[in-house]
């Protein structure tokens, strides 16, 4: 376990805390062992690389950060608010307002067009809708353009998109409405090397423009150099 490593010379414009966790622990069931996680500290606009072998609890940690699960022990502060003791409805609202999530694959709702998938957060959160400038659709269009999704693909069934395109549409959805934090769960594991590097560069460039922190989970240490900080989760036996 390595603690949060602040690299020198990477100070961002804002020094507000994006994420702070202390003694986080989670148990999936009464009979299950308690999973414990290293303390995390992240300033807004900074990116964190979470690394660990499979079974190290990466996805569980992301579920806690996303507010889909409530930590069994410890505290979780996000954007200066204690979210670890909130009711699930509040956590859902917090996630809709302040978080973007990118999965490993199958990121898109199959019956919505790519454009409608990107607009989903602005339809679920009034705050995200308000932040999407100039309008949600215009922002979605510019994000899709920036992520190199050709305009004739915006209305196609998502099943006609390549995996790389699907992941980039998912990135656009995570970025839309400028959330403070993006949680990315091995989003590049299904991509080849070229696509992978391009994806990470695009994601981080667009995140930087929005002062959005990216928490990126991967088992591929070769990606760590893109990020300000890295934390390693230990393998569990």
């Amino acid at each position, binding site marked *: 376990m390595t603690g949060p490593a602040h690299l020198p010379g990477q100070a961002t414009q804002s020094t507000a805390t994006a994420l702070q966790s202390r003694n986080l622990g989670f148990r999936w069931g009464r009979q299950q062992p308690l999973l414990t996680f290293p303390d995390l500290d992240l300033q807004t606009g900074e990116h964190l690389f979470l690394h660990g072998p499979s079974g190290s609890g990466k*996805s*569980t940690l*992301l*579920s806690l950060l*996303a507010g*889909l*699960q409530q930590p069994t022990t410890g505290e979780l502060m996000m954007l200066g608010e204690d979210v670890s003791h909130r009711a*699930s*409805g509040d956590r*859902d*609202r917090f*996630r*809709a*307002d302040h*978080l973007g*999530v990118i*999965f*490993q694959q*199958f*990121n*898109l*709702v*199959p*019956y*919505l067009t790519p454009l*409608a998938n990107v607009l*989903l*957060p602005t*339809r*679920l*959160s*009034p705050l995200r809708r308000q932040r999407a400038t100039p309008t949600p659709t215009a922002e979605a269009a510019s994000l899709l353009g920036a992520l190199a999704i050709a305009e004739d693909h915006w209305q196609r069934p998502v099943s006609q998109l390549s995996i790389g395109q699907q992941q980039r549409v998912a990135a656009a*959805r995570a970025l839309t409405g400028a959330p403070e934090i993006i*949680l990315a*769960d091995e989003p590049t594991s299904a991509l080849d090397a070229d696509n992978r590097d391009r994806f990470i560069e695009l994601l981080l460039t667009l995140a930087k423009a929005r002062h959005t922190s990216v928490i990126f989970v991967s088992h591929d240490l070769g990606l760590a150099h893109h990020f300000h900080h890295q934390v390693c989760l230990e393998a569990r036996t």
Partner: protein
Amino acid sequence: MKARLALTLALASLWHRRGVLALVSLTLTLSVTLLLGVQYLRSDIRQAFTSTVSGTDLIVGARSGPINLLLYSVFHIGDATNNIRWSTVEELARDPRIDWLVPLSLGDSYEGFRVVGTDPSFAAHFRYGRDQALQLAEGHWFSDTFDVVLGAEVARRKNHHSGDSVVLAHGGGSTSFMKHRDSPFRVSGVLAATGTPVDRAVYVSLQGLEAIHVGWESGVALPGRTLTPAQARQRDLTPSSVTAVLVGVERKVLTFQLQRAISQYRDEPLSAILPGIALSELWRLLGQFERILLYITGFVVITSLVGLMAVLLALQAQRRQEVAILRATGASPGLIASLYLIECVALTLVACVLALALGAAGLTLVGPWLLDNYGIRIGLRPLDSTEWLILASVPAAGLAVALIPALRAWSGSRHQGLGGSD
């Protein structure tokens, strides 16, 4: 905003899965059509039945029970216990409370169809359904002693037209050996279909009926005593008795008073019935099975709804990833659950609309054919409140059925972690 989002998502999801769901909707549509159709026909047939005779205030016959009198005078089923003397009919005609009366004389038959002897007042006063008068499809009402007017079904089944010659049989039954061969009748007209027993009857004048029975007093024709048509036209053919009389009352408030007076008639024992009441009583006896039919089709709809629920539950397994995406984007478990409710109700609504269209199209196509071939009159009409209620209960039942997958989705998505696989 959330409600609109839920609606958009649910409809998009339904459209996405239209292949599988089309079949379930088809099952549901057919069962709703069946349910609605049974209820529709039920009230239509009851309406048609209870208005087999309308406009007639009283039916008078020899003393008997109301159902019996109704059966032989209107439906031509069974026989009268006794006849009414012609003098009684003449006395009734003089009663100031009586507006009009139509004498009916039954007994003979033509190829199994009942022969009804009456006079021109029948065409003038007989009404059925919603105050509809009898219409002639061809020809004219009887003017000669040996003219006959055929009901629609009689003409169709025996393929008769105006000008055809027919020989009536003595007594009822389709295989009567005693026929009035020496006095054939000429078809003067054919009635339009009514959907009532009128379609299955043959109408002649009282005089015609009297003429063919001269010489038949002992029940069989006595040689030399019967009349030729030419002789018959010379004679006074006033009947000595009739079977029943349809009565129209001058002022409707006097109907019960008149009914009582006729029942207490001093010269011979008579009964007078109110046809509407007697028809309703008869329907209560006959109408039990259609209620059972409605219950059965109700169960068919429930079965299709259970089938719909099974499909929704099966689809739920495929939807874990989609639910994970929506949850990660900030959708609450309630929104996920509402998708299932909306989808199920939307499917039932589609089924209801399709069932209405299917039923209307079916009635429009089949209605005229039914009337022509079976004498059943069923037309398009606005649905009544009971039918709307039955129709509305289908989406309501759909909502109840959807609660099961919705609750499952709700509790499942509460405990689902990030990603569909956890």
